[in-house]
């Protein structure tokens, strides 16, 4: 198994990818994923609130610490075992289109 060789998919993701995944997991838990739309330039209120909340916390942290902190929230609040490659890759595949869009949004936001 890849995990046994110390090859964790989670360690290949950057903080933006993990943050996008955290948002998707939160929406999935709140059953609001269907209401997410970035069309016509408008940002969903949940996304704005989420990025404001994490923007303040992450702004002063270097990348490695951002990754760790977001990983902590994924493993606790969202109960994702990020060090299970099977569980993580299933999540990433399931939401690949949405995640790609969210990562683009984060790349344009100077806080992240």
């Amino acid at each position, binding site marked *: 198994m890849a995990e046994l060789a110390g090859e*964790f998919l989670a360690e290949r993701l950057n903080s933006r990818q993990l943050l996008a995944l955290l948002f998707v997991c939160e929406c999935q838990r709140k059953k609001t994923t269907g209401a997410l739309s970035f069309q016509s330039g408008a940002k969903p209120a949940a996304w704005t609130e989420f990025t404001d*909340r994490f923007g*303040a916390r992450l702004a*002063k942290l270097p990348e490695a610490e951002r990754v760790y902190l977001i990983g*902590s929230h994924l*493993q*606790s609040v969202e*109960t994702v*075992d990020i*060090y299970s490659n099977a569980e993580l890759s299933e999540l990433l595949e399931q939401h690949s289109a949405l995640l790609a869009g969210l990562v683009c949004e984060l790349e344009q936001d100077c806080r992240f």
Partner: protein
Amino acid sequence: MKIMFVMVKEDYIDPMNIELLSAIAKREGHETFLNVLEHDNLMEEVGAIRPDIVAYSAKTGESNVMFRANRAIKATYKDRIFTVMGGPHPTFNFMRMQLYGEDLKLPLTFSGPAMPRVVEDTQLDALVVGEGDEPWPAMLKALAGGGSLDGISNVVTRSNRRPDGSVALQERNMALDDLPYLDRDVVYAKTRLKEFGMRSLMAGRGCPFPCTYCFNAKYNAMYKGKGKMLNRYSVDRLLAEIEDMVRRHPTQFIKFYDDVFVFRTDDWLVEFADKYPRAVGLPFHCLVRSDLVRRDPEILTYLKKAGIKSISMSIESGNPFIREQVFKRGMDAEDIRFAFELCHKQDINTFSNTILAVPVPVIPDPRDPEFDRKAKDLCSHLESYHRMNLGALRAKIDLSAPLDAAAGRKIVEYLESLGLRRRVIDYDVESIDINIQNKVVFGEFPELHPYPGTPVSQYTIDVGAFDGDFEKLHQNYQTESPFTCFTAQDKLEQVNLSLLGLVLLVFPSWRNLVVNHLIKRRWTKLYFIMYYLAKSYLIGTKIYPMRYSAGHILRTIKESFFSELLKHSREEGERFYQKRKGLNAPPSEVLGGPWQS
């Protein structure tokens, strides 16, 4: 088999580690006993009981006392008694703990945060790394059958020790419901906990956060890929154990001792809030994080519904630089304000820990002739060590050119915006202030002490505040700071503030008197009395309120006064480590700098 557990001294918190291992041992058909070194004669009891196994669970600091006890046992009984130690100390130090009959050679380098570079002569037969309850049944079976422990995961023996310092760990236990109820009888038969009305237990295991003063980050790295980090008992299983405990032991108050009791409003919390009042109905205390409360305020609504009386939410520092850059707390002042305000609205009494005396740079004085160099050095340190982005400052000021007065003012303002302060004591005053502003009901203000292996200890070495000689530290962590970056006056003010901080939570209007005058006086003994009275009042009436007879109260006051006195005493403290055996390496190779043997 007969198994004797050994603990150093009694506390007001159940030793859940011993209680669980004893319960598992009894389930497997063994007899268990407890020896409390503080008041029991170890050798006399060992002679009378003749245990097959003596087992210790050690935290760093108390481990030395246990090693002494174990050496005495092995000197007399040799192979006739098998001795084993688990707990945090062997989990993080097993590579330098020499076993019975072993000639241990340390590897030249350790990876990760600083560790003491000495071999500990333990005379133990085996060490258990990580969760001890997982290999425990297999260990008992092997020992009962005269077999070897060498093939059991988490166990280190002299014959299975790996040269690279690694150890095979089992998967995390994700089926906590299968564990037996804690065996409190073995502890209550020998301690005052039997009469104490507060019972401690945990609803689950695991904490994912990277706080640098804690072992969890390192622990989680060890267990990476070995199952879900957070595991909980089902609500029904948890409540069944509490009901059983309340039936068998007089109980007035429950303390859930999980690092973080709940992370969000989930099905578990909703079910707990629904069933706990009917099944148990006793007031309780638990620990959560402010940022999680802000993210999901309904957490408090459900805890209140369940009957919570008091809650712990650690602030750790009122200063944003320390909180984020040194402690990596991942929460801001607004998280703290929001969560504490919500607790007050819900009438939940708050308990917070805040760490003082943290070595951090101060902003140089603009009148200092060396201001130019010092300010630039500080900026360079923030960028290179803390990896902070000072782009906004560099956009305004050319740091390669000499600084004029205007540039100097801008740098000072900028550094202040990052949380840096002009005087050492300012950081601690800010920490006291955040507690007062947020109306924290009860607070502890310990001074930072560098525990081996934690990232914050490495930080204190990196910034030159600590030489890495852990052996000179005291076991008691509420004493004078060990850091060389503080002057004698700084240390006096820190000790005084750590005592008077709690008093200020009772009398916040004394703030200026304390900060501007009292902390500078050598009246620490008087401040200790004030601290003790404030602590007794707040703990007894607000945090863990319980009813006791007059005799019990007097006895508790006497015991707790001396216990607190010991915690704050420099002279009485057991040395953290005893030097036993040095490395055959020149001082320069010793991690953290040279030490004298």
